[in-house]
């Protein structure tokens, strides 16, 4: 592969030859923050079915992974929280969709472990709960732990802020979330970014994900939908500051 052999012109091209029915896909993001919008849409357009999708959440109705639910392309989700999606609820309750809940930290660590070649690990999270059912339990230093397995995927689709031509990545603010670990745990990892910069223009000390984990790069266009727009007004903030000053006097 040449130096710019990782760059593709569109999300559809970036997924060419990678998609088939019954694939296991990891999709980055927390809520709608830092999701691979363009690649999800391209998976939808490809029409592949029977997918197992590993993602912290399931998008919202009609956006993010919600789009793949509308088209019934997902067979099973592995997630920690799916509360924001009516179509998800309907398909799950009617038995059309399988669901495996993982505690969020267990999900993150399973992905990290998978990417690092660690087949399983012990954790205290979930001991004595439904999550522990059917899992090996072991005591270390008087504390109980359960055995959780590492997770890998046929394909990881992630979102970063910037990539260089070799696939070195920088994420932005809380849009990082599950993206860097999913980059390590996909047999093939495809990233969509806001900007592709020349190799050498990112300080090597500032790279979050080294290019070894990234196979294909595409520059996307982003809606960046907000789930809960919470704001304060400048007059409220001023009033609070004033009363705080009064109290401290």
């Amino acid at each position: 592969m040449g130096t710019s052999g990782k760059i593709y012109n569109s999300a559809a091209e970036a997924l060419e030859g990678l998609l088939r029915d019954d694939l296991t896909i990891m999709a980055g993001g927390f809520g709608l923050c830092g999701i691979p919008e363009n690649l999800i849409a391209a998976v939808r357009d490809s029409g592949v079915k029977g997918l197992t999708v590993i993602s912290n959440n399931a998008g919202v109705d009609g956006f993010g992974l919600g789009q793949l639910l509308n088209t019934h392309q997902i067979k099973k989700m592995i997630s920690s929280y799916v509360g924001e999606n009516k179509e998800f609820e309907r398909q799950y309750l009617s038995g059309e969709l399988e669901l495996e809940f993982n505690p969020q930290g267990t999900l993150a660590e399973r992905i990290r472990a998978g990417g690092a070649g660690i087949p399983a690990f012990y954790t205290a999270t979930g001991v004595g709960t439904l999550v522990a059912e059917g899992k090996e339990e072991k005591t270390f230093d008087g504390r109980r732990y359960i055995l959780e397995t590492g997770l890998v995927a046929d394909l990881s689709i992630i979102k970063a802020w910037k990539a260089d031509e070799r696939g070195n990545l920088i994420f932005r603010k809380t849009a990082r979330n599950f993206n860097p670990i999913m980059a390590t745990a996909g047999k093939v990892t495809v990233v969509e970014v806001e900007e592709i910069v020349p190799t050498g223009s990112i300080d090597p000390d500032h790279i979050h994900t080294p290019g070894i984990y990234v196979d294909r790069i595409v520059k996307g266009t982003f809606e960046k939908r907000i789930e809960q727009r919470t704001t304060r007004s400048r007059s409220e903030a001023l009033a609070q500051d004033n009363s705080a000053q009064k109290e401290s006097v």
Partner: protein
Amino acid sequence: MVWTRDDLAKRAAKELQDGYYVNLGIGIPTLVANHIPEGMTVTFQSENGMLGMGPFPYDDEVDPDLINAGKQTITELDETSYFSSSDSFAMIRGGHINLTILGAMEVAENGDIANWMIPGKLVKGMGGAMDLVAGVKRVVVVMEHTSKHGESKVLKACELPLTGTGVVSLIITTLGVFEVKPDGSGLRLIELAPDVTLEDIAASTEAAYEVAL
């Protein structure tokens, strides 16, 4: 007079200590951030990958790449750092967070907590709750003392599926405050809400407790 949501947050804020790193659950626990004692430095962690959470943004500052674990838009501070979900839960599961304040549907006298699932109703998932109760050094619960039907939520044993076993240190309810004995052998009632009597507590508490006011 039972404690209001804001009273509960104020009481929970007394559990903060200078220099603490704290994770707040969604709902009443979020209000604790409004009651940090004057002169105290407390850093809030958000499990989606941020340490040092700032207030809600002004309208012209809203950034879709900057949200808290409740998916609300927020701001950063001078001391803020960002990290991946696995780093975030390494902080939580590795015991580096000093305190978490969470809501609950039920707690039990041995420190068990149930706050993620009601069988037969739609299950949204546990999110980071199981990791928080298992990993954070001190788990403080703020909750209604009784259900809408007047039934105790402070129980001998939880009936709902558990989030964690023997993990709760302190229970702040609308009627008062209970300590969970570190060996899990029961509760100690250490405070009453204003005008709440021992008889009120006795009438609405299923769990066994010692009175230690």
